[in-house]
């Protein structure tokens, strides 16, 4: 009796990295890109009040957004690597701890985690808000990264490990010299995805009074009452950033594939 493996669909965490074969999104990318830049340039010219004002108000928020994103993704990758290793560990306790971490983090909304870690941290240690925000984002994304690393490591043929061990490398060296450098290639696309998703999610830290793009915009809007125009501009800026990032990441992927293709 024929049994067919059911197809698995997984949709990423919201980044729109166009794949070369995806023609629809590719040309949509161009239109979106040109349209976004066009609006960002034209709106302030046509209607300088408030659009030009908004553009003047927001830039330091962009810096904060990037700062939080880059610090968070770096920390999240460290946590993710450890979690990923924990999830494939044969040590039952470590394995369980890593799994539990993933399970709990995935089960709680990021915003709740942000509040929680922010306040909980505040109770026990005195850290600046931006550090608290970075820690909260990293703890959350570390769980997702853990799954990415786990899948990446598992995608490497076990023969690589055996060859490395038989040369005299220990488990840790094998991971460092042989498995991770190869897993990196498999991991890059989802990491790129997570990076963009994280950048977007940093908008949540605006609620913790970190002056990112969104916070800056809200401050402007609350004084000028130009809600509609401010949020239009904010959305355009985010869109521009993610469009550019997704293109960069997709290009990087192509370059990193050298030892597979050339």
């Amino acid at each position, binding site marked *: 009796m024929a049994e067919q493996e059911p197809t698995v669909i997984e949709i990423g965490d919201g980044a729109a990295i166009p794949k070369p074969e995806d023609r629809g999104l590719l040309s949509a990318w161009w239109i979106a890109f040109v349209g976004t830049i066009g609006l960002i340039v034209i709106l302030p010219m046509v209607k300088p009040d408030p659009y030009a004002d908004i553009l003047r108000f927001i830039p330091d928020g962009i810096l904060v957004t990037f700062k939080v994103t880059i610090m968070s993704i770096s920390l999240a990758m460290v946590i993710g690597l450890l979690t990923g290793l924990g999830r494939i560990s044969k040590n039952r306790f470590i394995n369980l701890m890593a799994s539990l971490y993933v399970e709990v983090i995935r089960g709680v909304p990021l915003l709740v985690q942000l509040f929680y870690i922010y306040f909980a941290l505040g109770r026990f240690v005195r850290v600046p808000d931006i550090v608290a925000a970075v820690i909260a984002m990293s703890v959350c994304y570390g769980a997702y990264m853990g799954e990415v690393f786990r899948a990446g490591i598992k995608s490497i043929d076990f023969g*690589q490990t*055996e*060859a*490395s061990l038989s*040369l*005299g490398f220990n488990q840790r060296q094998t991971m460092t*010299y042989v498995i991770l*450098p190869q897993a990196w290639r498999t991991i890059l696309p989802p990491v790129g995805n997570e990076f963009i998703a994280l950048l977007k999610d940093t908008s949540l830290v605006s609620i913790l009074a970190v002056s990112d793009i969104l916070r800056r915009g809200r401050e402007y809007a609350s004084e000028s009452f130009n809600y509609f125009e401010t949020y239009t501009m904010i959305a355009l800026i985010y869109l521009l950033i993610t469009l550019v990032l997704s293109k960069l990441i997709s290009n990087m992927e192509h370059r990193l594939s050298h*030892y597979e293709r050339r």
Partner: protein
Amino acid sequence: MNAAEPIIQIKNINKTFGTFKALDDVSLDVSVGERVVVLGPSGSGKSTLLRAINRLETIDSGTIIVDGRNLYDPSQDINRIRMELGMVFQSFNLFRHMTVLENLTLAPIKLKKMPKSQAEELGLKLLDKVGIREKADWYPVQLSGGQQQRVAIARALAMEPKIMLFDEPTSALDPEMIGEVLDVMINLAREGMTMVVVTHEMGFAREVADKVVFMDEGKIVEMAPPDRFFENPEHKRTRKFLEQIL
């Protein structure tokens, strides 16, 4: 260590997978410079035996002593023992993210702390030996199977092991490439390397083996020099196997 003592001493080892007995009270000695060829039908435990020798597979009982060191003695560093044992796999297992030369130099540089230049010199010499020096900067995927396997042999040799273990090194190769790999192995044998080889290449077995071991159902059924083994096998099962395969 007594020079006359076997460099590999396997005593009464057993291994079960679940309820399946893959190695059943196997004992085998290999002397320095000896070439042992292991034959046997599929599933008879040849690979398991070979992998037990460098503890890629742990055994359930029995002892294995390599170069005077007990593999299961907790005071022994298994990684140091493995450096003495070069292993070549059916599926080559070259490191895909490294060039041929990097494959060869990684272990000497990291494990023996050999300076990079010296490791590369050694690497190139070994590539010369296996006849593909010109591919030093290529990546594994760019090579044919035969070339990859020769690199894999060179990679194992780069650690200057005392013993080489081969697990069906030519079974994944197209017929045209088998010869080039066997040539390298024959040369190695001529230079006096201690070798344990699992293979189905009878010609190779005849030519280089000092001792042929025949396994079936996890047991060593027969062990003899190749002349006697091929011309006048003692056991029925050996005869049946030879009939099928020749």
